[in-house]
């Protein structure tokens, strides 16, 4: 049935099928900044011949907020609060590489308990981000229900993050040297330790069970549907060489067959203590990218369950002076954001704030593949491919 439905859709339709007597011009279709499927304000100027796309030119910058300039006039704790707004869907995962870069410059290490709590919150952020992807991708393909079910399941994770840190999307929980130790610096508030609240372990176990159920339900509802398979299998194939050439990272790279996960190479988060698989795809089409992210949610839930059972006790932050001055130097740290590889390059001249902060965001490199990939595709396939790349405009434009 698949081959009947897909016959005649080879993107490189031969010239003989296009009429050669009538001179036709390609229509310029502006898939504009305001559009239901561009994940923000991405503008694509597409030249379209009927339904076939001849060329696509992305126009960026509609959401530029000037993070790197903002960072030049602020101190390190202030930048921590700003930075988790870069990729607003996964809040906690944006703070970690920045704090790690600063800790590398100061040559201090966070205590064990702080590292475990950071790991738990990062994996929760990963689950939350992938829930948004799963719901929104089904919406772009046309299934109108999974987004509601995904948002309902995501609320539990956000409630858990809120009970620990106080914020759902922007936790602001990392401090240089560990995580937030106390509610304030006065004599009474210092005794109010911001450790894990009572009931956290049981709530997390329940929530992770529900996440595993939700993954199975999503697999049956969306992934098993024949129309979804026919719409996404064989569409937008990114080969290994193309992916490595354009610098895509994260689940896109893993769906094309490259088993590369930065989580196994970080030393400031204890991933080596836990036992998890890395899902890798075979073909590199849209279906594999969707499936890889679904399986990653399952692995993250397993990691969290293991981390809760083996939580060490200890202080939440190492001793740092009250006014933090970072010594001179430069450092670059990269980690595995839910969307790909995120890195922060901090140049410090020994002041209260960095001299220069450069943010390497995953979505900016991921969408550089769009003009190459979209040539010759049909218009509905453009929507399917763009959705499967899972980018957020805050990440692209910073």
């Amino acid at each position, binding site marked *: 049935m698949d081959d009947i439905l897909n016959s005649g859709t080879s993107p490189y339709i031969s010239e003989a099928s296009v009429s050669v007597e009538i001179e036709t011009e390609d229509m310029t279709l502006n898939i504009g900044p305001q559009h239901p499927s561009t994940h923000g304000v991405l503008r694509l100027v597409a030249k379209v011949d009927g339904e076939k796309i001849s060329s696509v030119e992305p126009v960026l910058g509609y959401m530029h907020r000037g993070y790197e300039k903002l960072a030049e006039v602020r101190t390190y*704790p202030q930048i921590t609060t700003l930075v988790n707004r870069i990729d607003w869907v996964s809040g906690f995962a944006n703070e970690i590489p920045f704090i790690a870069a600063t800790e590398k410059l100061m040559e201090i290490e966070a205590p064990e308990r702080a590292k475990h709590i950071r790991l738990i919150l990062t994996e929760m952020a990963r689950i939350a981000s992938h829930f948004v992807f799963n719901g929104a991708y089904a919406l772009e393909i046309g299934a109108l229900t999974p987004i509601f079910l995904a948002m309902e399941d995501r609320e539990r994770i956000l409630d858990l993050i809120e009970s620990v840190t*106080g914020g759902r999307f*922007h936790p602001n929980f990392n401090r240089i040297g560990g995580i937030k130790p106390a509610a*304030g610096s006065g004599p009474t508030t210092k005794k109010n330790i*911001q450790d894990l609240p009572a009931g956290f372990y049981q709530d997390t176990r329940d929530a992770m069970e529900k996440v595993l159920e939700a993954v199975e339900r999503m697999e*049956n509802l969306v992934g098993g549907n024949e129309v979804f398979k026919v719409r996404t299998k064989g569409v937008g194939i990114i080969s290994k060489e193309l992916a490595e050439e354009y610098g895509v990272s994260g689940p896109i790279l893993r769906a094309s067959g490259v088993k590369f996960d930065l989580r196994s190479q970080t030393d400031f988060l204890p991933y080596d203590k836990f036992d998890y698989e890395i899902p890798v795809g075979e073909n590199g089409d849209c279906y594999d990218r969707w499936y890889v992210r679904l399986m990653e949610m399952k692995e993250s839930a397993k990691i969290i369950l293991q981390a809760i059972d083996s939580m060490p006790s200890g202080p939440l932050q190492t001793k740092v002076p009250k006014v933090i001055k970072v010594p001179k130097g430069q450092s670059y740290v990269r980690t595995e954001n839910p969307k790909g590889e995120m890195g922060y390059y901090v140049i410090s001249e020994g002041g209260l704030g960095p001299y220069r902060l450069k943010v390497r965001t995953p979505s900016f490199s991921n969408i550089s593949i769009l003009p190459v990939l979209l040539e010759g595709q049909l218009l509905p396939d453009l929507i399917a491919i763009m959705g499967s790349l899972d980018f957020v405009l805050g990440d692209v434009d910073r």
Partner: protein
Amino acid sequence: MKTFRPKLPGFLTGMKILLFNMFKTLSPLSPNPNVNYPFEKEIVAPRARGVIALDQEACTSCMLCARQCPDWCIYIEGHKELQPPAKPGGRQRSRAVLDRFDIDYALCMYCGICVEVCPFDALFWTPEYEYSEYNMGDMLHDKNRLDQWLNTVPEVEGLES
């Protein structure tokens, strides 16, 4: 990566899931995941960052919070008052009195740096969230209003063992 084989053809499984969802929503036995705001209010965690409360007596106008705020949304003005000395013949003490302590919630980022750096226990977080206004100027809470939020500061909760 294994591929899964559902028992029914795929689209029938999807339709079955939605049918069961519908029965779950209609049955009075299963819990309702929706909060019918504004008739029912959502119960948030006690640590949630809703609004900041100020204890006027404890504040000494040291300006640490106003300096550390990333958005510079706290406006403080104070003056020093002379007080009688502790024992007769001693030096006169001075006390800082607040004239103005405004937080502009239209600018506030809810990051919590001000609460964290205050050395005198003057600022507290509360989980109240219903203070939206029709007029942007009303989002500037002056010190009397910030004082009223003190009633809503929750008790310190227990920690996980």
